């Protein structure tokens, strides 16, 4: 039924055409909404969410890193103080040990010196005793020769010893 029924007037008013213009406009609104605005807005929203998530992740990572840094600093401090205290105790122990060793050595030296002194004393005494004996023998033999008479060492021992005593004291 296609008929070329001529043209409209240059200025014509037709209610159907007005309604169709309105309808066309509203249909285009729906088209734009469905095919342009909705998809783009959805993508923009997703992007916003992703960026927000990235930001919060970054913040979280930062705070975690801060906390870990704190932890490590604390650990470092602890290690330092521990090392300090270890060095201190070690040096104290070393000092104490060295003092002990020195005092032990001193004591040993003292003991040895005392032993040596005692030995010397003993040797002196022994030498003195030997000397006394030999002197008393000598004196006796001399006295025998002088008095030409045998002296009984036993009988005169106290006399001779007293003489030697007095000698040694001089």
């Amino acid at each position, binding site marked *: *039924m*296609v*008929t*070329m*029924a*001529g*043209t*409209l*007037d*240059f*200025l*014509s*008013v*037709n209610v*159907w*055409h*007005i*309604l*169709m*213009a*309105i309808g*066309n*406009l509203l*249909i*285009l*609104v729906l*088209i*734009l*909404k469905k*095919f*342009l*605005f909705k*998809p*783009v*807005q*959805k*993508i*923009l929203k*997703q*992007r916003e969410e*992703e960026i927000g998530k990235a930001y919060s992740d970054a913040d979280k990572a930062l705070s975690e890193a801060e906390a870990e840094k704190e932890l490590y600093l604390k650990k470092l401090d602890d290690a330092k103080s521990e090392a300090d205290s270890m060095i201190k105790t070690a040096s104290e122990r070393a000092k104490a040990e060295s003092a002990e060793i020195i005092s032990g050595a001193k004591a040993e030296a003292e003991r040895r010196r005392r032993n040596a002194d005692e030995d010397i004393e003993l040797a002196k005494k022994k030498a003195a005793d030997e000397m006394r004996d030999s002197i008393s023998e000598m004196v006796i033999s001399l006295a025998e020769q002088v008095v030409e008479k045998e002296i009984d060492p036993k009988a005169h021992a106290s006399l001779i010893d007293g003489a030697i005593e007095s000698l040694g004291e001089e």
Partner: protein
Amino acid sequence: MEIEVTGAKILLELPFGITITETQVNMWIVMLGIALVCIWLTRGLKVRPTSKRQIIAEYLVKTAENFVTSNMGKKWKWFAPYIAALFSLAMFCSLSSLLGMYPPTSDLNTTAGWAIMTFVMITFYKIKTNGPLGYAKSLTEPIFIMTPMNILGEFATPLSMAFRMFGNVASGTVVSALVYAALSVANNALFGWLPGILGEMGQKLPILQLGVPAILSLYFDVFSGVLQAFIFCMLTMLYIASAAEPSD
């Protein structure tokens, strides 16, 4: 020589006096084109855009939303698709004349329909904001005598909008037709002087019609079409936004 300026060609007559003219068909072609471009632009959208298409699509949406929110306020963001549709339809309908099509915006019925939409929304928001009584009362201000003038003023808004766009686009068509006809007359006259076959050929070839209409169409079709679409959208937004503001 007669120059005839007519409206759209009637392509189809349906019962009840409904006719389908070039206006409707061309508008459908434009709408189809816009729809296809939208579908093509938003194909394979990604959260991290990799295609220029997506950047263009996002730019268009953001521009439309900024355009609406900067003129109407943030709460009108939902209105962006309507303005985008109105702007793109008006602009591409006017630009369709570049392809030699009959521009649907040079049909008064088209611009009247859109202006009536604006008028309905203006009135709806006026009644919604001030209440039916408040709206009726605002028509009687400042004094009761002014009521007829105020009612006239209400209708003047869509009327002026409809005729503004129609007049600009249609006058462009008229001026183009006149200039084209004048150039053809000038062409005939100029090459009529030439002797023999040269003159006949010159008269048949539209030599003078080559350059000037193109420059005119640059103004009437491109500049005026875009500008009128912009003006129509601006007025729609401003009227509706101010209608939604409490009147006092």
